[in-house]
């Protein structure tokens, strides 16, 4: 076995130069070479108690796949990962590894943890580059004579579909949009997650036997009850995400030039407004303000910059420390020239002839920690000022779409509109309906949604086996 690489820092990820990449939509990080991957894999101590595995929401056997990289057997590494994770090329890119698998890594006690995410991505990309990737797929060896419907083709739905298909069920995914992938195609931009990767993963699922029906809005085109009673689906998994944009309810929000992040990103990502060959327009103007501090806000800001906005600002009411976005994304945004207006809260969007002309903001300060330990933002009196902006993108969160709830009697939701489901099984108040992902938890991460999809898949198997 090769000698442990005791370097304290991760093997750096090759990246496009910030001032070049902020003008294109190609991927920011270009990925490890084989040599870099082996070098980084050699930093793993292969420790006995494997804290990384417990940190992974789908419990990938991390030390083992890294060992395969050390042995330069990438195919074996891929097989180990895909035992529990059906979308490694996606997770390797968008998982918040710093707060999951890499957080408890022993190498992180002194220095940086092993770059597990980058290694996962390397393995997946290596396999994906093969021409046979989408065609050479192991088909399920058993057939169970039962049908499962998956509503929504985002990460939760894809994970559930993959597992159920492997178990031998007849699986059909219903997608409302014209393209499968959910948030992976309409939300996360090309420069962070190339759409070709998503479509290859989906092609692979199809080869395995999963059917995907596009342009099907469940609750409108056909209801959940009809899928069950008339179309013969024995169980249904709802993974419809949190797609309803929240607005701030401040004056001026309906002016031309104000977008929800969902609309802005859908125009850019799904409808490819950045490509002149596509018809969908998008407006941004000279100075774009993005309100919010999460990954979606970073995505919107960086997309606006790439479209050609001269000046892009993030406006967030707390300080950088409280930002929910991944550190890497904040770092990338700063490198690309995005301005940060922290401890700043918009109070009014100003217009002229119906178009955005400016945004009135107040400065905020954080209170002493309350009983819950959280420091609340408070307005500093008399601190109003006007930010000179030509468009505003609101990225302050999303809620589940009420369409399924409103058209499925007996399906209960909580006060935030999230479907009530058993934490372990995903079973809802209607026994044959299971749910998981953002529609249950509210907006969260790709991997948590996938984890929920997997749990629900095994619960559906138990339910149908009875």
């Amino acid at each position: 076995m090769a000698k442990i690489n005791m370097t304290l820092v991760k093997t750096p990820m090759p990246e496009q130069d910030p001032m070049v990449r902020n003008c294109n939509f190609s991927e920011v990080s270009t990925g490890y070479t084989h040599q870099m991957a082996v070098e980084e894999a050699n930093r793993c101590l292969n420790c006995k108690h494997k804290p990384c595995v417990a940190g992974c929401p789908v419990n990938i056997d991390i030390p083992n796949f890294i060992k395969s990289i050390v042995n330069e057997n990438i195919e074996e590494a891929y097989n180990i990962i895909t035992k529990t994770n059906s979308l490694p090329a996606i997770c390797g890119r968008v998982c918040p590894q710093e707060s999951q698998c890499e957080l408890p890594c022993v190498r992180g006690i002194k220095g940086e943890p092993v770059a597990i995410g980058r290694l996962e991505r390397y393995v997946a990309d290596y396999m994906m580059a093969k021409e046979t990737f989408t065609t050479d797929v192991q088909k399920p060896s058993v057939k169970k004579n039962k049908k499962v419907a998956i509503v929504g083709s985002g990460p939760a739905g894809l994970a559930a579909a993959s597992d159920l298909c492997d178990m031998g069920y007849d699986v059909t995914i219903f997608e409302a949009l014209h393209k499968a992938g959910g948030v992976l195609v309409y939300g996360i931009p090309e420069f962070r997650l190339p759409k070709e990767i998503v479509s290859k993963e989906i092609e692979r699922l199809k080869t395995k036997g999963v059917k995907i029906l596009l342009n099907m809005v469940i609750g409108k085109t056909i209801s959940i009850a009809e899928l069950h009673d008339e179309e013969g689906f024995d169980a249904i998994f709802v993974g419809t995400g949190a797609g309803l944009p929240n607005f701030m309810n401040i004056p001026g929000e309906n002016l031309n030039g104000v977008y929800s992040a969902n609309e802005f990103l859908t125009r850019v990502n799904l409808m490819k407004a950045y490509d002149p060959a596509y018809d969908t327009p998008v407006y941004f103007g000279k100075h774009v303000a993005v309100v919010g501090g999460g990954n979606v806000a970073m995505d919107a800001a960086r997309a606006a910059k790439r479209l050609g906005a001269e000046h892009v600002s993030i406006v967030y009411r707390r300080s950088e420390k409280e930002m929910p976005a991944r550190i890497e994304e904040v770092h990338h945004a700063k490198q690309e020239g995005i301005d940060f207006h922290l401890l700043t809260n918009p109070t009014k969007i100003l217009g002229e002839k119906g178009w955005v002309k400016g945004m009135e903001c107040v400065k905020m300060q954080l209170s002493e920690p309350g009983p819950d330990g959280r420091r609340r933002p408070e307005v500093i009196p008399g601190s109003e000022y006007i930010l000179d902006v030509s468009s505003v993108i609101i990225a302050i969160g999303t809620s589940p779409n009420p369409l399924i709830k409103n058209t499925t009697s007996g399906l209960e939701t909580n006060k935030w509109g999230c479907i009530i489901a058993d934490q372990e099984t995903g079973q809802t108040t209607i026994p044959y309906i299971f749910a998981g992902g953002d529609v249950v938890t509210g907006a969260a991460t790709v991997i948590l949604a996938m984890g929920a999809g997997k749990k629900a898949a095994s619960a559906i198997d138990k339910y149908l086996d009875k």
Partner: protein
Amino acid sequence: MYKILEKKDLNNEVVYMKVDAPAVAKKCEPGQFIILRVNEQGERIPLTIEDYDREEGWVSIIFQKVGKTTYLLGTLNEQDYILDFVGPLGTASHTDGMKRVCVIGGGLGCAIAFPQAKKLYNNGAHVDIIAGFRNKDLVILQEEMKKVSTNYYLMTDDGSAGEKGLVTEKLKKLIEQGSNYDTVIAIGPVIMMKFVSLLTKEYGIKTIVSMNPIMIDGTGMCGGCRLTVGGETKFACVDGPDFDGHLVDFDSVLQRLSMYKEEENHKCNLFRGIE
């Protein structure tokens, strides 16, 4: 892929298409709409369902060639395919309890007003239709609408067909003559719906308008179609497209509709080879 079963030019600008879409036809109700995408590079645009046949599995749409997408759609012929066609979207029109109704269609709005008038008429309501157009060449659905109305009044701006005048003038006359409407349904240009609503407010007659703003997904996801109704923000795609005309803030709707006008004109002209 969704096959075009039948295509007719209703006039120089307006096209009728019957599209094979069994899943949509099975569920749709008057007042609902579909979203379509002509080709891979195309936009998603909402169009209201004009008519449908559940057994034969088709849905018909009527559209006016105003932008690149509608021109492009207009170049397709019978037996061609539309890439994406999703629906039915939006909330179906509520027609319960309506007994004496005046249905007003302005221009292309007649295509949307038609299924509502048909449903009301078939349910036994007294239905007066006022159909307004710029001139005789733009008149559509005259025969169809006559069949589903108690009285049909045709109005043109220049008097080249029917009576000369605005739909609001006719409506005012009918109300003054004691038509005793319990509901007015107005569908057409935003400016027409605004003035109909202002008029009926004076007489205290419940008025329903149908909004057709800019949309992408049509399922409540983007919020692009938001409008202010009674001081609250609503999404036309899921809360509508029908709203109480006395509560809609029409001026901000007009403003939002103009958002992409410049770009739209440019792309449309390029497509038509005008520039």
